[in-house]
């Protein structure tokens, strides 16, 4: 492995490919040329990249759920319910957690036990085990574009199987599907493996098949400051573009302060486009995805509807191309198909009421956008510097040094010294910056905002705020204030 931000050569790619396909029996059924032919016949409205581009042009926000169960027939039933009853615009297949760790033997156990128990014992669809045939069966039984959503550091075999299966989008990236999802996979390894996934998409693009790629925006879903997730999204977009990816959806997870959230999406879209242009990737279509609140949810279903709808409203006002939908069961467990459809319906109703409405520009919004962009630039500039111009190398070094530092990331490769907390309006700020190379102005700005809250709450700025904020939404508030405040 010799990681650089450079398009994998055909030689390297096809050599790796042999290993990849040999790693589990279903790998041998992937035939790239046959897959290209298959994908050429996919109608326009079932192609993920095309549907996203159209939505962007029309200025509308599409709704997409998360969903996946162990068995093919149940999975088809589920997806059709979400499409027809729920009104989903885009369909997912959430992949189970064993597959994410490449533990396909355990998937077999999960599949068998699910058949026996008559209910899914897996938390997602084990696409590798079901193989190209199974994936196509699903794809041919639904009426919308399909995407794999997972959290897999090494998703090379998965990518081969789902794309050959007709699924025209894959979520993930070398950072975003490592640090929140793994403990001991090096960044070098996961970036390299995701170059493979991106290169595969690049290969399809060169053969006339549009396939969408989506870095996972929310990361740990827990108080991630916008500039941190935006920086990661932009890195992954640049790395993907280098491998030939053309349709890129950058993502962001709702923090809860409306102006900050809108600013984050706007900054994300603009900066992604700027960086892509700057580094010579001129023919990418950049779209955005907004994730409804990704942290701990309230257990009460009515309250959950409030969180869901507020997220939908924010997505619309931000002008995101799509929104990922939560469900009223979020706090408890994987939703039933009914609960999942309910989340989509509340979302779509809200989107429909806000169709065509955008948050107007204001002094406050302008300020937030400029702060987020400045913070993001600090991180990205440093990575390029560390990599002497090579972003892949810079990223490995930078994450090791804490230039990018993801709160609550379980990976041992994460620096883990940054701490976030909400300010007095609920915007997520940097409480401790660890090694993030911010300018003094930016550090002061973050600090001042937190001091304002501390004063209001009559306590010190500190880790207790972070802890309180983690539980706040679950308890029915945005900001974790002391009792009686």
């Amino acid at each position: 492995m010799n990681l650089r931000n450079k398009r994998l050569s055909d030689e390297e790619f096809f050599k790796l490919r042999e290993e990849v396909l040999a790693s589990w029996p279903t790998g041998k059924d992937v035939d790239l040329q046959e897959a290209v032919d298959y994908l050429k016949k996919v109608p326009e409205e079932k192609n993920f990249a095309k549907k996203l581009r159209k939505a962007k042009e029309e200025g509308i926000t599409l709704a997409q759920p998360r969903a996946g169960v162990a068995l093919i027939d149940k999975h088809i039933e589920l997806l059709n319910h979400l499409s027809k009853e729920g009104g989903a615009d885009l369909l997912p297949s959430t992949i189970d957690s064993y597959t994410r760790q490449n533990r396909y033997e355990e998937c077999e156990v999960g599949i068998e036990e699910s058949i026996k128990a008559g209910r899914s014992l897996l938390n997602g669809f084990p696409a590798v085990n079901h193989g190209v045939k199974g994936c196509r069966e699903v794809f041919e039984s639904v009426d919308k574009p399909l995407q794999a959503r997972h959290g897999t550091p090494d998703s090379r075999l998965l990518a081969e199987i789902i794309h050959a299966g007709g699924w025209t989008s894959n979520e993930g990236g070398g950072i975003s599907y490592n640090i929140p999802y793994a403990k001991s996979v090096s960044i070098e390894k996961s970036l390299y493996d995701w170059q493979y996934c991106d290169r595969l998409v690049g290969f399809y693009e060169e053969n006339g098949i549009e396939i969408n790629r989506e870095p996972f925006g929310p990361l740990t879903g827990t108080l991630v400051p916008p500039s941190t997730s935006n920086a990661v999204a932009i890195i992954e977009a640049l790395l993907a573009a280098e491998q030939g990816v053309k349709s890129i959806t950058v993502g962001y997870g709702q923090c809860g302060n409306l102006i900050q959230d809108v600013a984050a999406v706007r900054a994300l879209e603009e900066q992604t486009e700027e960086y892509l242009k700057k580094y010579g990737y001129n023919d990418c279509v950049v779209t955005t995805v907004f994730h409804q609140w990704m942290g701990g949810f309230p257990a009460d279903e009515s309250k959950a509807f409030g969180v869901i709808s507020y997220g939908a409203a924010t997505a619309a006002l931000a002008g995101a191309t799509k929104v990922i939908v939560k469900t009223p069961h979020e706090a408890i467990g994987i939703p039933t198909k009914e609960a999942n459809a309910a989340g989509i319906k509340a979302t779509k109703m809200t989107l429909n009421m806000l169709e065509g409405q955008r948050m107007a520009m204001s002094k406050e919004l302008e300020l937030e956008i400029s702060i987020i962009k400045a913070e993001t630039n600090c991180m990205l500039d440093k990575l390029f510097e560390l990599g002497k111009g090579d972003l892949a190398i810079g990223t490995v070094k930078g994450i090791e040094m804490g230039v990018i530092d993801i709160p609550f990331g379980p990976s041992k490769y994460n620096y883990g010294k940054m701490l976030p907390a909400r300010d007095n309006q609920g915007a997520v700020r940097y409480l401790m910056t660890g090694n993030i190379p911010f300018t003094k102005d930016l550090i002061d700005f973050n600090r001042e905002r937190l001091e304002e809250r501390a004063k209001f709450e009559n306590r010190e700025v500190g880790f207790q705020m972070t802890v309180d904020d983690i539980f706040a939404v679950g308890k029915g508030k945005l900001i974790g204030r002391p009792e009686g405040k």
Partner: protein
Amino acid sequence: MEKKKVVLGVIGSDCHAVGNKILDYSLTDAGFEVINIGVLSPQEDFINAAIETNADAILVSSLYGHGEIDCRGMREKCEEAGLKDILLYVGGNIVVGKQDWNEVKQRFLDMGFDRVYPPGTPVEEGIRDLKEDLNITE
């Protein structure tokens, strides 16, 4: 008085780290010595850590839904490893989906867990029970 030792971790292929960090912080704060093996931990890692440190209890978290598969046989493995009657707690979102809690609880009690916690259990509750079960008086 010597601190009681608890092994803490998230079982199986589960990467949910936030609750684990909070539990670590709160248990330490409450006077326990915490051996935190973190996320993505197989049964063996819990048991080895408990043996190495001569722990008083093992606190298993499972959030992602595979708890039922991942926790099976854990009590037996403890016994085999010589951890006789070690306290075994499990909590989080331990099964797939919204199921009847009493049934779920019974399933895990039958597996040999001493205490089983539903989603969203406040840390304080676990700590209170630990103190009771380990006869800690403040």
